[in-house]
């Protein structure tokens, strides 16, 4: 396994108390696999990724438990110096907002080249040549002429390509993309997702795609982990989860989105609001919004149950719902 997150716990200390952003998250990604982590704001999907990358702001954040095994090594036990060597070279991250992630006063060539100077000890001239090569690879037109341009001189889609180029520079084995296309227009979004998927295939990388967009997930992911209030509530291969979700939250989400291919009647709406992380409801965090909630849901935190659509059929599906069978078949 390329990356395995085990029982990760992250808290934030705020003036109003302790916000438990991640409450025991476990997931795994293999080389060449795309795992989508789906969740709404505050679900802990980005915080988990930041903890994996080692870029969580601490304080106020604190990792209070768990392991992040990358190629067998627990990253959480490494010294910052060792982690820095892994970051960028072996795992890299793509952020949502390319404009604020790139340095506005350095040319894109300098920023791309820096990777090679710092990690590979190349000369400036060599690094510049590498930068042009990378820009070509992510299909930025006229790369040779544009290598000395500044980030603001590029369009949003082109900037996101530069982010991808930067993440791929040292050919890492794992890429974490946090809402990589959310800020982009749909026609550009399609270009960027296609590029990302193609490069992932070419380099046989593992990809963790963090998103709230059920459409993007359906397009590119192999597996999904659905997060709610700092926990994974359901995880499954992509085809299965869309065909028959096994958690009421996933089912609610799938029903609540308007569809391009259907003229809607009234939309199904999940009632209520996502919980405040300072006061996560006892039991299953989704219980106040859940149409199926029973007494047990209000007192006991449900574990991740093994889900089998037919008896004996193990598909690597799990659902944190006491009533997953009813949900699956209902």
């Amino acid at each position, binding site marked *: 396994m390329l990356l395995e997150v085990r029982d990760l716990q992250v808290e934030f200390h705020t003036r109003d108390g302790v916000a438990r952003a991640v409450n025991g998250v476990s997931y795994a990604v293999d080389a060449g696999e795309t795992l989508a982590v789906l969740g709404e*704001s505050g679900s802990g999907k980005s915080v988990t990724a930041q903890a994996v990358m080692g870029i969580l702001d601490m304080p106020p954040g604190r990792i209070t438990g768990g392991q992040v095994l990358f190629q067998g090594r627990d990253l959480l036990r490494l010294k910052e110096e060792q982690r820095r060597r892994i970051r960028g070279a072996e795992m890299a991250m793509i952020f949502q907002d390319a404009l604020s992630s790139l340095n506005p006063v350095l040319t894109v060539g300098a920023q791309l080249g820096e990777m090679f100077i710092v990690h590979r000890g190349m000369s400036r001239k060599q690094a510049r040549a590498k930068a042009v090569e990378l820009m070509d690879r992510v299909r930025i037109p006229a790369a040779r002429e544009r290598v000395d341009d500044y980030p603001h001189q590029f369009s949003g889609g082109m900037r996101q390509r530069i982010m991808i180029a930067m993440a791929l520079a040292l050919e890492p084995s794992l890429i974490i993309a946090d809402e990589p296309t959310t800020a982009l227009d749909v*026609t*550009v979004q399609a270009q960027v997702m296609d590029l990302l998927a193609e490069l992932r295939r070419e380099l046989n990388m593992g990809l963790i795609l963090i998103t709230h967009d059920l459409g993007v997930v359906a397009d590119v992911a192999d597996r999904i982990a659905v997060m709610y209030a700092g926990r994974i509530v359901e995880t499954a291969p992509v085809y299965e989860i*869309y065909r028959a979700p096994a958690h009421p939250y996933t089912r609610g989400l799938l029903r*609540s989105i*308007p*569809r391009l*291919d259907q003229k809607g009647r009234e939309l199904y709406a999940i009632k209520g*609001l996502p919980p405040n992380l300072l006061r996560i409801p006892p039991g299953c965090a989704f219980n106040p919004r859940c149409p199926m909630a029973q007494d047990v849901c209000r007192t006991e935190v449900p574990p991740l149950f093994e889900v089998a659509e037919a008896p004996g059929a193990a598909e690597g599906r799990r659902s944190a719902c006491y009533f997953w069978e009813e949900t699956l078949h209902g």
Partner: protein
Amino acid sequence: MAEPILEVRDLVKHYPLTRGILFKKQIGAVRAVDGVSFALDPGETLGIVGESGCGKSTVAKLVVNLERPTSGVIRYKGEDITRLSGRALKAVRRNIQMVFQDPYTSLNPRMTVGDIIGEPYEIHPEVAPKGDRRRRVRELLDVVGLNPEYINRYPHQFSGGQRQRIGIARGLALRPEIIVADEPVSALDVSVQAQVINLMERLQDEFGLSYIFIAHDLSIVRHISDRVGVMYLGRLAEIGSDAEIYEHPTHPYTQALLSAVPLPDPTAREHRDRIILTGDVPSPANPPSGCRFRTRCWKARERCEVEVPELAVPEAFRGLRGPAAHPSACHFAEERQIVPAGGGGNGEGRDSRRETQ
């Protein structure tokens, strides 16, 4: 059919580009809206979709009279409102209200919810006498599904979805006939979006409102709209009923746009017709000659360079009946089915016939 409640003809808005500080000189113009025409019927929802920079938000601002057009006509019940001022303008504005995108910045953080929703009455006191306003505000809170007890709270005490409800309540305060909603749900979480959309549809039925619903999300626009206009670089590329646009698009830009929307259905991966456009949208300060889409269009020929295509039923479909015969600004309009009809496993209703070309 009844007379349209709102009619927009050849609407143009250019923002001047200037150089110099002391001696300002106009060196060009951003042609944000460059000849847009449409009509809105009473009780109807017209969706306007397009990517960033296409001018859809400028259209919204022009319709609610927050901006004055460079040229063109906006008729509200037959009367051109672009030249009105003073009392007459005020009366029209009362009837055309706006709901903004960002529920975090469109509410004054230092005003209570009661003051925010009641503020329109300060400007239009004839709608509600002073003593009656608190009662009206409570009523409005109730109508949009918020607890009327919250009248003295501040915006920061509400979630994003609740704030958008406050914005909607403010838009309803003067009992307008038309509401222009600019990306009203795009800042909200998926599970909350559905609540707000359902609310807007319920309010439309209850108060007989006409909506202009502006968004970049094509799925949401299809859900809520009776008719849809697709904008590209300041002009409408295509306009028609939701079925005409989504199931029988004839403009290449609409087709590309539809094909780029990810469907929440992994089984659609294999048999979808994907059109990946190359390049970016050109700058509205310097749009291409002829058809504005031609620089990214796979069908572009010489004619597209020299002749601006008019928004009308294309020659090929003239005289024909059927859903493909709707206005489309393309010299080489052709029907192409992009969106697989029916949809996937969690859908209900339609049969699951699928055709790909």
